[in-house]
Every structure is written in C-alpha cells, then in structure tokens.
C-alpha cells in the first residue's frame, strides 16, 4: 500500500495512545479490601469478565480510530505494487516508420536504457521482430486514460508518432510524471510544427524530429525534466446563466461542471440561474452563459472568467485567438463534456492570461451514457473511488466513536 502523504505516517504512533492509557490505568490500580463480596450476585461477578471484554473492545476501537484518522491524512492509494512500473515508457504510434524505430531502438539498446516500448493499447512492442499490432486507438489521450485506469505510474512517458490536429487537440489527464512529445512530421508539416510548439512550450524549444538519433537523445535527456504545471486555481462559485430554450444544454453543462468540481476535489458551488434573473447582485468566479443573445460585456466585469456557449462559433482552425477571446472548436463526436470543461477551466493558457473564452460545447442526446463510459475509462474513476473510500472511512470513524462512547457508558 502506498500513501500520497507518507510524511503523516508518524501519526500511526498515536495508535499507541489507547494502549498507553490502558497500561497507565492498570498501573494506577488501587485495590481496597472489603470484608466479603458474597453478596454480589453471580451476574455481577460475570460482569467483571464482561468489563474486561469491553475494555479490550474499547482499546481496539480507539486504536482503530487513530489508525483510520492517520490513513485519511496519509491518503492511501490501494493499488497493486506490481503495477507501479517506475520505468520510462515510450508510447509509440502504430503508423511510425520502421526506419525511425530501428534507429531509436539501436540507440537505446546500445546504451542499455531502461525504456519500455508500448503501443497505443499499452501492449508491449515486439522490437525483436519489429512487429507492431495495428490497434484501433485514435489519439494519445486514450493511451493516457489507459495508463491512469490501470494505475500505471511510470517515471516518464514519451509519445512518439506523427499526429494530425484532431489527434493532438485533446490534452492528456493530469499526471504526476513527466510527458515528452516527440512529433514526427506528417503530411501537413506546418501544422505538426505548430502543434509541436504548443505541446513542448514548457521546454521552451521546438522539436522537429527528422532523425532517429536525435529522437532517442531527446527521450533520454528530457526524462524527469518536464512536469505538467500544477493546477492551482481556486473557484468559489460557478454560475450558469441560461436562456429558457437552452434547458437541455444547461443540464449537460451543469452535470459536467459538477463532475469537474468533484474530479478536482473542490468546494465549489455550481448554481443555475435564468439569464433574465442575472442582476447586479450576482457575483462569482466563473460565469457560464448559455445562449446566443447574452451580452458578455455586461457581466464580464463582475466575474473573473466568463465562458459563453454559442452556436455562432464556426472556425476551421484548431485554436485561434485574438486579444480578448479564445475560440475552441471541439469534436462533438469524440470529446467528452466534463473533460472539455476541465480543460477550459484548468489547462488552457488563455485562462491564465485571463482571456474570456467562447466555447462551442458538443451536445448530443447521448451525453449521459457517454459520461458513464468516460467515468469507466478516464481519471474520474480514481478520484471518485477515493472520495467514496474517504466517505466510508469517515463513516466508519463516526461509527467507531459512537461505539467507543457506548462502551464507555457501559463501562461506568
């Protein structure tokens, strides 16, 4: 069992407190001689044993309370240790040219680097036979989803392949390992270069890979150097203002926001309100305006960030921006609304630059079933599991405290 906050494990020593109390109490045992106890009924003699039995349970319950409190603070992660693969992973797209692989493989093998080659479905690449499974997976996001779902925590991940804009537009989930993007030129070289710039902007350099040697070098040298920026964005209230005819979209937006808030473990209120009820008194951190006719300028000054759903956005470019707004154009068929909102809120540099964003939300009638599917495969599942576990532990602690109090009362 691993812990997210192992530094708090010293609190386990607190579990000894009940034992110490018991020993101290035992040491302080003061006995008074009385003439005879023959008048004590047999039942009361039996109670003596009962009290000892209760004391044992009292000790056990108190110890468990301390242990569970420590567990909550230390945040245990119940994953199979065997699955924690602290190796460098190389996620290889299946359409990568063989000559590139051979070049990279030679370099890596010569230097005895501990790199595991995985294809998009996380199947081990058969390097000896230079054999690749042709998988159905589309873009790297799904590979990262699989990593999260299987609780694999590599030291670093390098993604190797040539991608089109659709494959690259989705961000990866939040990871605690470094991710390197090694982009091979594809048919539209200019787009690849632009994407490479975006994806590697934290490294402050552009990787335009032409040769296998340079590629291998990049994999190794950039390992452990790049970490995704931590999310540190506190939200108090998210208000969704909507027009009457956009009820369906509002519900989707509301559910997605709730999911994101839960995913990010935030104490954030999500409030739905009709647009006509928006007045001077409505304030919050984030405003979602759902409707075409709403004027963002009227309310934008009272909110740190304003998003607007509108059907009017229809841009062909992946990302285009002007001085005030960033337009997103997501694939309504493939993208998932919670992930999308999550990205909008936390991962977009436009947010950091305090731009307002105009978003075209992909809405379809199958959203809720899609959302369930997403929960099964994405990082949401881990968080929700943890939340459930904490709820159970807190409930158990409360129950134990109740039992402890009852035992104390019976003991007296």
């Amino acid at each position, binding site marked *: 069992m691993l812990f997210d906050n192992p530094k708090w494990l010293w609190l386990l020593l607190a579990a000894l407190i009940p034992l110490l109390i018991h020993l101290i109490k035992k040491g302080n045992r*003061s006995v008074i*001689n009385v003439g005879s106890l*023959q008048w004590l009924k047999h039942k*009361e003699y039996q109670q003596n044993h009962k009290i000892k039995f209760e004391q044992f349970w009292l000790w056990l319950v108190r110890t468990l309370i301390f242990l569970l409190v420590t567990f909550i603070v230390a945040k245990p992660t119940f994953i199979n240790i065997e699955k924690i693969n602290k190796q460098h992973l190389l996620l290889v797209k299946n359409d990568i040219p063989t000559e590139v692989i051979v070049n990279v493989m030679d370099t890596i093998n010569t230097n005895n680097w501990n790199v595991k080659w995985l294809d998009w479905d996380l199947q081990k690449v058969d390097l000896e036979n230079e054999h690749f499974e042709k998988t159905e997976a589309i873009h790297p996001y799904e590979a990262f989803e699989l990593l999260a779902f299987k609780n694999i925590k590599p030291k670093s991940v390098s993604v190797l392949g040539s991608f089109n804009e659709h494959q690259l537009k989705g961000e990866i989930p939040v990871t605690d390992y470094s991710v390197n993007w090694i982009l091979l030129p594809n048919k539209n070289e200019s787009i690849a270069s632009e994407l490479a710039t975006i994806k590697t902007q934290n490294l402050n350099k552009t990787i335009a890979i032409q040769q296998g040697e340079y590629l291998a070098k990049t994999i190794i040298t950039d390992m452990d150097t790049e970490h995704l920026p931590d999310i540190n964005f506190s939200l108090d209230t998210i208000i969704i203002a909507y027009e009457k005819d956009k009820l369906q979209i509002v519900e989707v937006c509301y559910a997605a926001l709730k999911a994101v808030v839960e995913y990010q473990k935030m104490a954030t209120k999500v409030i739905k309100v009709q647009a006509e009820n928006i007045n001077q008194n409505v304030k919050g951190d984030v405003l979602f305006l759902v409707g075409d006719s709403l004027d963002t300028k009227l309310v934008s000054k009272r909110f740190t960030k304003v998003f607007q759903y509108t059907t009017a956005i229809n841009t062909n470019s992946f990302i285009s921006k002007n001085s005030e707004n960033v337009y997103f154009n997501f694939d309504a068929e493939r993208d998932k609304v919670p992930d999308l909102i999550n990205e909008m809120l936390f991962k977009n540099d436009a947010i950091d630059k305090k731009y307002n964003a105009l978003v075209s939300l992909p809405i379809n009638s199958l959203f809720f079933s899609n959302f369930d599917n997403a929960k099964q495969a994405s990082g949401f599942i881990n968080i929700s599991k943890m939340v459930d576990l904490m709820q159970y532990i807190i409930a158990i602690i409360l129950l134990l405290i109740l039992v402890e109090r009852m035992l104390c009362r019976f003991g007296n």
Partner: protein
Amino acid sequence: MAASIISIQQLLVNPNTFAIPKQLQLLAQKTITQLNVGMHAAKKLHNNFEFNQFKSYTPGDDLRLVDWKTFGKTKKLYIKQAPKINNISVHLIPDVSKSMLYEEGGISKINFTIYLFASLCNLVMQQQDDLFFFNTKKKLNLKEALHFLTRTKLVNKWTNNQQQYYQSINNNKKKLIIYCSDFYEYNNEMIEWLNLAAVRKNEVIVFYITGKQERDFDFKNANHIKDLETGQTTILNKQIKESAKTYFQNRKNYLKNVFTKNKINYVELSMNELPVNALSKFLLIRSKIANVI
C-alpha cells in the same frame, strides 16, 4: 517530669495493643474508667447481704432468718429476705472469619472486637461472673481471657470453624453468649447457629459491626475491591456501589427482624464510634434483660 498519658486513640493505633495482653488490659481499663465516670464508691459499708423485704414466717422456714427485733416490736414472726446473687456464665465469641480483617479508621473489625471483648472481660470480672472465651470449657480469669483474645486466629470462612461454634453452645448450662460479627454469611449459617443458641434458653447478645465507608461503599480513589475471605478482586463500578448500598440496608433490616423474632438482643456497632458507646448499649440491654427477669 510530666508523666506521659497515653490516650485510647494512641493505644488503638498501636499494633502491639492487640498482641500484648497487658497493653490490651490497659486499653480496656481506660475504657471501663471512662464508662464509670460519675460513679462513686458508697460512703458506708453495709452488711454482707443486702436487705430487700420482710416475709411472714411459715413453718419450715429457717429460724435463724427470723428478725427478732421486729418480733419484739410487733409480736409477729418475720423473715428478712435478700436478693439472691446469681453468677452467670458469660461466653465471648468473636467471628474469626477473615472478613473481620476489614479496616476503617486505622482499626480492623477483629481488633475492634478484641478491644470490646477485653473491656467486657473487665466488666464481667467486676461482676464476679464466670468468663468463657469461644469454646473453652474452663472458666477463665482476666489474664487468661486477655491471653486468648490476643491470640485469636482467623480462618478464611466462618464455616471453616463451624464445629467449634456449635461446641461453644453445646452444654446445657444456661449462659450469656456475646457474639460479635460482621455477618457476612453464605447460607444463613450464623443466624441458624445463633437461633439454636437462643432456643437453648441462653441469653444471646449480638454485636453487628460495620464501618461507615463500608455501608456507603464510599471508597474514594479505589477502582478495584478485594474480597478478604476469598481473595477475589473485582472492578469497582457504579453498579456495584449501588448493589452494596442496597445490600447493607436490606441486611440491617433483615438481621433486626430475624433477631427480634428469635429474642436475640441485637446491637449495631459502627467502627467509627468509640467502644464506650458499644459498652453503654450493652449495659442498657443487660439492665433491660435483668428487669424482665
């Protein structure tokens, strides 16, 4: 040099008091002295018998008892009568079960009993009655009685000495039995024995000794209690305290009823009282008995 005066309290606290007959006698004498405070010796000495009443002479009466002075005045024969002096046998019987080791205020129940009996021994000797201790068959003098008292041996339970208790009431001679106990019994064995003693036309006076703390079960700072008879230790909790209070209240009423029913004189003694009070109660009971007789 001022003579050091040892008080009763000092003697009570001293463990040697109950082990050395002389010390015990000192304690008993001091108590008896306290008891006799206010009494004084008669100024004039009377005849060797105490006049009580005149009785008309009937044939067969001893002529030596005829009061000739009265005959000279009244020309009638009268006989002078004096009360008959009866010597009774006093049997002092302590409860020698280990429950009597219970201590309160620095004195144990058994020592309290010994102290009480030692004082009684002095009283009995003053009365020139016959004194017996437990199941001794021979009449004891004060020294011997104190010797027996200081060498009282305790047994775990009353029933371990049951045979000797029955022996002590076995002979047919009428006697005064003074029994001192805390009345911790399992199957009414003490009460049965006392009933038997009372049935044989003996006078029975029972001293029931308890301590105030014991009755209230007010043992502050104690979390365990130990049975002196069995050695068993139990956790002291509220429930046991309540049971104890109820027990002592019921026990007191029960003993009172049983002894009254069987014409056994019953005196409650608190270990917190001075034995002088106990002796006063005893004398009061004795005087009542004498009046009845």
